[in-house]
């Protein structure tokens, strides 16, 4: 059927280059260093690790290698996180009190301090993005992007060091910082802005930064309120139901979903503005916005599906059934149905236009309710973060 023989093409200059041939020496150096560090960590700490943790360690090495290949700037971020986190951990000297008297920990890279820097930088980045949008300044846009990257760096350092801190409290208290609202809100800020930066590069547009960082800054506002008004930023030991390796997978997968849906909603708001003739000359065309919104929802939907399924598998281990119609589960289903319908209408019925943008925007309300509202207003098994 297929005609493949005797091909002697005349012009091969436009042929797609196979992926591995595209890689330069830097692309190889990065995974080699990463895997070497992984092996080093394993050789040093393997006696403390069980099979799951070993799998996670090497799995992380492989995943971040591939991620570095598919999106190059992430390599620098990873190196930065590793350097600052190790430096910070080193400064602790195994004493939780160090954070109060070691200069660098107190003012720069202690866990809470790094998170505070993240907060400040995100808000600054948002203002800078808006300024760049109105001043049509490419340079300011670049500054905003750098600020966002730095905020992400500080946020991840904060989480890493917090992870370490939790073990300093007591070895049995130690756990990955994904267990309460304070921690997952940081994760939310990081994932949402990282995804935004990815699309910023792919679509070569910095005009949406202000929009996306608006939702990130709201999350920052929540973190600040939660820290100063509720003092909920302290590290709490894990309740028995959360002591599971599933937490390391279920929670981040869910937040890729939440982050992507928020990103889509903010892009949708930009789309609606353009549609109404506002800021048209400053924002990307509605085609680009529409496409970006679709891409974000697709990624979000895929990850949200995986997260919900993994949640069900975890529930089967922890609660005695993969589906208990718990409030959080049910709302996850509603969010899922909402975006499934969105995608269905777009992909199958070919629906386009402001209606989908409005829907994506309202979808954020549904998502926010599933994420926060359930914790605030409804009771159930999944009450790990309370307000």
């Amino acid at each position, binding site marked *: 059927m*297929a005609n493949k023989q005797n091909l002697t093409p005349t*012009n091969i200059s436009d*042929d797609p280059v196979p992926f591995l041939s595209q890689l330069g020496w830097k692309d190889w150096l990065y995974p080699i260093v990463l895997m070497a560090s992984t092996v080093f960590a394993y050789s040093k700490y393997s006696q403390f690790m069980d099979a799951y943790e070993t799998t996670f360690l090497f799995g992380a090495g492989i995943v971040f290698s591939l991620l570095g290949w598919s999106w190059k700037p992430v390599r620098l971020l990873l190196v930065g996180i590793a350097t600052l986190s190790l430096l910070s951990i080193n400064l602790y000297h195994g004493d939780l009190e160090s954070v109060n008297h070691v200069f660098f920990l107190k003012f720069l890279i202690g866990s809470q301090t790094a998170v505070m820097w993240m907060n400040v930088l995100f808000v600054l980045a948002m203002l800078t993005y808006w300024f760049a949008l109105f001043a049509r300044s490419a340079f300011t846009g670049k500054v905003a992007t750098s600020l966002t990257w730095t905020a992400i760096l500080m946020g991840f350092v904060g989480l890493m060091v917090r992870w370490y801190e939790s073990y300093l409290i007591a070895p049995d208290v130690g756990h990955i910082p994904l267990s309460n609202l304070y921690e997952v809100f940081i994760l939310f800020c990081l994932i949402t802005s990282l995804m935004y930066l990815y699309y910023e590069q792919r679509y070569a547009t910095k005009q949406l930064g202000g929009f996306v960082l608006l939702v990130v800054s709201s999350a920052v506002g929540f973190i600040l309120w939660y820290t100063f008004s509720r*003092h909920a930023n302290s590290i709490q030991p894990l309740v028995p139901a959360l*002591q599971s390796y599933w937490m390391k997978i279920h929670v981040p997968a869910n937040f890729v979903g939440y982050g992507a849906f928020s990103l889509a909603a903010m892009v949708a708001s930009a789309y609606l503005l353009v549609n109404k003739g506002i800021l048209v000359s400053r924002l990307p065309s509605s085609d680009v916005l*529409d496409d970006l919104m679709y891409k974000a929802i697709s990624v979000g939907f895929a990850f949200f599906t995986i997260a919900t399924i993994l949640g069900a598998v975890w529930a089967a281990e922890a609660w*005695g059934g993969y589906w208990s119609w718990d409030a959080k589960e*049910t709302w996850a289903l509603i969010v899922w149905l909402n975006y499934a319908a969105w*995608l269905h209408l777009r992909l199958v019925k070919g629906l386009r236009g402001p209606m989908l943008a409005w829907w994506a925007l309202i979808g954020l309300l549904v998502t926010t309710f599933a994420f926060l509202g359930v914790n605030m207003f*409804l009771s159930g098994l999944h009450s790990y973060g309370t307000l």
Partner: protein
Amino acid sequence: MRFAVSVLTVLGIASIIGTVLKQNEPYANYVIQFGQFWFDLFEMLGLYDVYHSAWFLVILVFLVASTSLCIYRNTPLMLKELRAYREQATEKSLRAFSHQHEYSTTQSLEQVRQDVSHFLTVRSFRLKTVKHADGSELIAAKAGSYQRLGYIFTHVAIVIICIGGLMDGNVPLKVQELLGQKTVESRDIPANEVPKKSRLSVSNLSFRANMTLPEGASADVAFQRVRDGYMVQELPFSIALTDFRIEHYPTGQPKSFESDLVIMDPDLKAPLKHTISVNHPLIYKGIAIYQSDFQDGGSKLNFDVWGILSPEAKPIPVSGTIFGKTEFGAGANGLQLEFIDFRKFNILNLSPDGKGKPRNVGPNVTFKVRDTAGQAKEYVNYMQPLQLDGRAYFVSGMRSSPQEEFKYLRIPADSNFEMQGFMQTRAVLFNKALHQEIASRFALKALKPSDDVAVKNKFEASVVQLLGAFSEGGYAEISRLIEASVPQKQREAAAQTYIKIITGAAFEAYQLGQERAGIKNVKVDENTQAFLQDSLNAMSDLFFYGEPIYLQMTKFEQREASGLQLTRSPGKNLVYSGSVLLVLGIFAMIYIRERRIWFLIKPQQKAVLFAMSANRKNRDFEIEFNRYQSQLTKLLQS
């Protein structure tokens, strides 16, 4: 499909109801919450267990049916599309495409065919060549055809997941109930007396049942909650609990719940010993046994019972068992103590602003005191004094009905952190025979030696009167006394004077109480004053405590019970495989882009017609088309 989407919408709304209205509460709670009328209506609609109500299941079945129908109708078409190259496309139809371009070329047919084939192949297109009678050739190519599988996978997945879910839901039970073969038991009777109609046999396909096993006990049945009653689920083995453990973090929060189980089964050579914990169930004979919760399993408790209104300061020892009843006193004043729950650890945040750290405040006991008329009040007493606002108090909560919040009585602990000091002072103050003695002692201190006998007598009389009132109803009685005998304008001043007198008298009562207890050289310091102030407040509150006794726990021997959940869910694997299919399908649908390309090579006109289409035209497609178009210009016109 429109039907399926509407069904999904209804499903979504129904699900929301279930999250807003608390599910599977005891029916009495709903009656209290909604009133009888709404309760009946909601019950009829099955709103107390939405997800297992008949109409909800019917929606699910409709969803399965309509999705299946959708798959049945569209799959052959999709598979045909997946395989087809559409090589029948004519020049006319290709020209009608929105994405097409004609190139003029000087190259030979063979050269073009070769270049174009190569062009397509390196871009992962699969192609088919058709020679036409007029000497032209059509190359039909396609890529990303497996996108179509995405539709099939996702829809099949939804059907599989729903079927799995329906299997594990209580559909079989529902059917049996409708046929009248099974009924729900709502009486509180031992499991072995439950009639066959309310028992589910070992062969029951799927269930989710609960079992509460005290340490040292064993059972071979579990209970499945159905609406306002239950059914007995028989098990193919019996489970014994040898030990239940809770470990705590240094902060007092629970760290782990573990049950040491022994499975006894005639099929086993030796009993199977296994420890389960949260996140680590045991699966035996297809039945998963989970650590679900825990409660008291009948702890033995010892109490000192203090008469709180009597002129005595001697406690009566009483013992009891959780879930047991103990008679106290006899005749018309007889009381029945019903012990409900014992908790060894209580993590409370007692800091005044609520910002401090929660900590373990030690054991408490919940019990009811029932009088001969059958009226009961519920109490919760803490064994050890709690630190409140920097001082130590014995705390007891009281309420007359489960809807009320507990109201708390705080009895100050004495300098030895015991109840003795308070009870001695109280016994003296509430003992009318001693009021004259208190008054005399107080008069000695309060009056100058120069005051004459008449003044002294008057003073003593008023002290005795005040103490009499206080011992009959606390400050409330004093205020009644004031209202009855003092003109309005002077009441404030009188109240202040009276409180001063009571406080002074309490000081004497305290010393007298200590002396009566055999303590010489009663020590008095700044704490005494605060202690007495708290004592007077507590004594006043005793009149609202409901019953004339206070139970102080002195000893406990804890016996715990582990709450197990037992499930058999044959649909689980179906649901999991459906989930895998769903993920594959979603990725195929979103990330595989189906595109078709045609090249009509026309040697006579020295032209090549390039046309491209996709079932989803989006920005990526436009970009790809434009790229190919310019690449082909180079390729064909060079």
